[in-house]
């Protein structure tokens, strides 16, 4: 049972001033009170007061939120609306259960050790039938529209083999100075192994041996975001155990959303668990980690010859910017590179509209939110837009592909590899 009193306290702090209307990306598109924090907070308060019921409508409205946290960040009264909305989703699941597609995906597929890889392997064999290659990107698009999937949409190729299958349990660096675990997450493991491979090469270059517990699972954030606490807990525990057995001091997580959930979310799932606390402390993410490495052994600056620099901009993932307050680190890191011409986009911390399953349930809305992000990216005339969350990356690739921009969306670690050529 979810304790209601703390939720009531958060809800009662809202004085309905309406400031959230000025920062909510969803409200900017649909302009209805139910879309914005003060409406949702009011509805949750009424629910807790038992003045309204656990209706389908309420469930729909609760899901119509990116969880980007812009409302909480700007609330003069410190109302943590995003957290309240997540908790209310869990309440809804407790009372009403999950919708059938979500139940199948979260409880059936995501939670199973074998089913997700099996399905994706089968998928990778069949993808040629349904999809055709996008020449300029390592992606696909549909040959015809399907439910939930638009024809023009960028769809990542299923990796073959999966990322974790490309390595043994541990890759040793020459003259290793340290050892680090790697949490891949679903997107890197099944869709973008190149991001994981870049991370591994960077680590090896910095003389770290890398360990890959093969029994790691999905971080659980998709389940948590849908209010399925049970599945989130089961996945979380599997990860805690998997890494615990390897005796590692640090664990690097390239995806910002996974990182946020592993480091912060798990503490909420298991508030007083010492093992989870120790696990959380071990989490590191690339920008902070490599910035520290660089300060330890400054890279040799290549002479600033006539070679063309990469004009680069950076999109702040919500989970990093507002979740972890990490936004200076990637900038400090990238701005040091002799290969990069830095350009800041307007509102780099505005949500891209992906937000996990939000993108599937509200694809049109997600696309409208994305449009503004792509406008801002286009205005920078950057060669590359880097980000550090796999969800954002997929979303940006989709937007750029549909707009037919020359800009490439890449993960931070992929830039780092090029931005700091191996010292002589």
């Amino acid at each position, binding site marked *: 049972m979810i304790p209601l009193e703390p939720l009531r306290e958060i809800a009662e702090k809202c*004085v*309905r001033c309406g400031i*959230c209307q000025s920062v909510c990306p969803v409200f900017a598109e649909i302009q*209805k009170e139910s879309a914005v924090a*003060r409406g949702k907070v009011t*509805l949750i308060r009424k629910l807790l007061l038992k003045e309204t019921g656990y209706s389908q*409508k*309420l469930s729909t409205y609760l899901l119509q939120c990116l969880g980007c946290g812009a409302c909480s960040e700007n609330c*003069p009264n410190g109302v943590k609306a995003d957290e309240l909305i997540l908790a209310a989703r869990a309440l809804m699941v407790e009372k009403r259960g999950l919708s059938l597609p979500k139940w199948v995906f979260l409880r059936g597929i995501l939670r199973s050790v074998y089913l997700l890889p099996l399905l994706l392997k089968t998928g990778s064999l069949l993808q040629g039938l349904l999809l055709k290659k996008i020449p300029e990107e390592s992606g696909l698009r549909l040959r015809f529209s399907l439910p939930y999937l638009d024809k023009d949409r960028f769809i990542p190729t299923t990796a073959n083999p999966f990322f974790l299958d490309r390595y043994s349990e541990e890759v040793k660096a020459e003259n290793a100075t340290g050892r680090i675990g790697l949490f891949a997450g679903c997107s890197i493991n099944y869709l973008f192994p190149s991001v994981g491979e870049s991370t591994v090469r960077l680590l090896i270059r910095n003389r770290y041996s890398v360990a890959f517990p093969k029994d790691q699972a999905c971080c659980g954030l998709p389940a948590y975001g849908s209010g399925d606490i049970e599945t989130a807990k089961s996945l979380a525990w599997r990860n805690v155990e998997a890494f615990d057995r390897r005796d590692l001091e640090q664990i690097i997580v390239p995806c910002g959303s996974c990182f946020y959930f592993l480091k912060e979310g798990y503490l909420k799932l298991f508030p007083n668990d010492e093992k989870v606390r120790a696990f959380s402390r071990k989490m590191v993410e690339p920008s902070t980690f490599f910035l520290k490495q660089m300060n330890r052994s400054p890279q040799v600056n290549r002479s600033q010859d006539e070679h063309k620099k990469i004009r680069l901009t950076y999109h702040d993932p919500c989970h990093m910017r507002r979740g972890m307050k990490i936004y200076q680190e990637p900038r400090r890191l990238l701005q040091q590179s002799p290969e990069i011409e830095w350009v800041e986009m307007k509102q780099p911390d505005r949500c891209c509209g992906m937000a996990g399953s939000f993108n599937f349930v509200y694809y049109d809305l997600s696309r409208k939110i994305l449009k503004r992000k792509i406008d801002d990216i286009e205005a920078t005339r950057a060669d590359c837009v880097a980000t550090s969350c796999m969800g954002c990356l997929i979303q940006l690739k989709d937007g750029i592909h549909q707009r037919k921009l020359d800009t490439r969306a890449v993960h931070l670690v992929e830039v780092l590899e090029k931005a700091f050529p191996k010292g002589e």
Partner: protein
Amino acid sequence: MIPMAQENNGRKGYCDLDKNLVRQIEAIVGKENVLSSIEDLICYGYDATNLEVLPGLVVFPNSAKEISQILILANKNRFPVVPRGMGTGFSGGSLPVWGGVVLVTTRLNRILEVDTENLIAIVEPGVVTGDFQKEVERLGLFYPPDPASQLYCSLGGNVAECAGGPRAVKYGVTKDYVLGLEVVLPTGEIIETGVKTMKGVVGYDLTKLFVGSEGTLGMITKIILKLLPLPDARKTAMVLFRDVEDAATAVSRIISSKIIPSTLELMDHASIQCVEDYLNMGLPKDAGALLLIEVDGDREVLPKYMAKIDEITSGLNRLEMKIAENDEETQTLWKARRALSPASYRLNPTKMAEDITVPRTEIATFIREARKIADERNLKIINFGHAGDGNLHTSIMIDEKNGDEKKRAEEAIEEIFKLTVRLGGTLSGEHGVGTTKAPYLHLELKHDAIEVMKKIKSVLDPNNILNPGKIFKT
């Protein structure tokens, strides 16, 4: 249970919104622009006051014509219609207190024209004030009214309530910028008022009648606004005083020295203490008052203004003065003022916020007396606001769960209103009467004046369908 407006819906002579009526309204605006689920109704039953009621239906019209059709329907069947912009008002002006249809203007949100030669703009009511300001500033122009909610309130709401803001001391309030309007009358006629020129005296000034009429006389569908050239630069200073009297004297002397600052914000002792406890930013807790002063205009002349202000305030019991040298320092100076709202909720969870206005020279007396009124009733009070124009946000912070605190606060507020009138002031500088101040109208206005207002209302709205239950005690 929710304090149901539905119960009031039965108010004599008004009909319920039955299926048939809903269908007719859907036929006018389109089904997708009508909301009727309980969840949606809850979301349109509040504004920035702490009141909650429940409308019968929420409707998003697309044009003046559609609004006209709805109002004709409302007269024929007699149901209340309540205009709503962004729902950020502080007097309950957009609350459907008698139920009925809430007409939301968010779909009417186009800037129709910005005329850079004649310095006017024509906008629809749903345009967000801050968006409009950004747009005209891009063109080197300036729309000064700056209510605290400028980033999330609408121009239609600003006009209906005659919103003000810190810049009022120099630039005036919304009514000083409205040249003309398109209004749908409660009986459905669409009229145009005013002019597109700086001058115009043909006929009665109906524009001024509708500005500040709180959505009771007509629904505004187009606004012609006057613009100014954008000032070249601005400069900010913060001055702390031993006593609030010194701050008040400073305000008068600055203005009589022929410098009109674009902002002259005051915080009293309790407000300073409250922010300092919250932020620990190093404000002297024994300070009696803080003034935030901003001057704008030609870049060259601003340092001279600041020197003059320095000279004036140094002759008073001043604790310190800081002048911002760049944007960052300006933001730091504004920090205390901006933090006041969240900080105040640490005193108590509910704010009873008023916006009385007194002559500038009476500010110190008002603050002293208001504090006495609160102290006598053992209530927490903070005073802050736009000292330059005497508009003070006197706020009593209460905990409704704490015995009869709410009752005591209501008593105190009535006393504060009486004090305001005694000092030659007005009950509301910029929030409007709405529902929250309706019971006190007679404290300020004479019976005959109220009767004239009621007559105007009944001529324009014979069936009392447009925003009923507002301004006048019922």
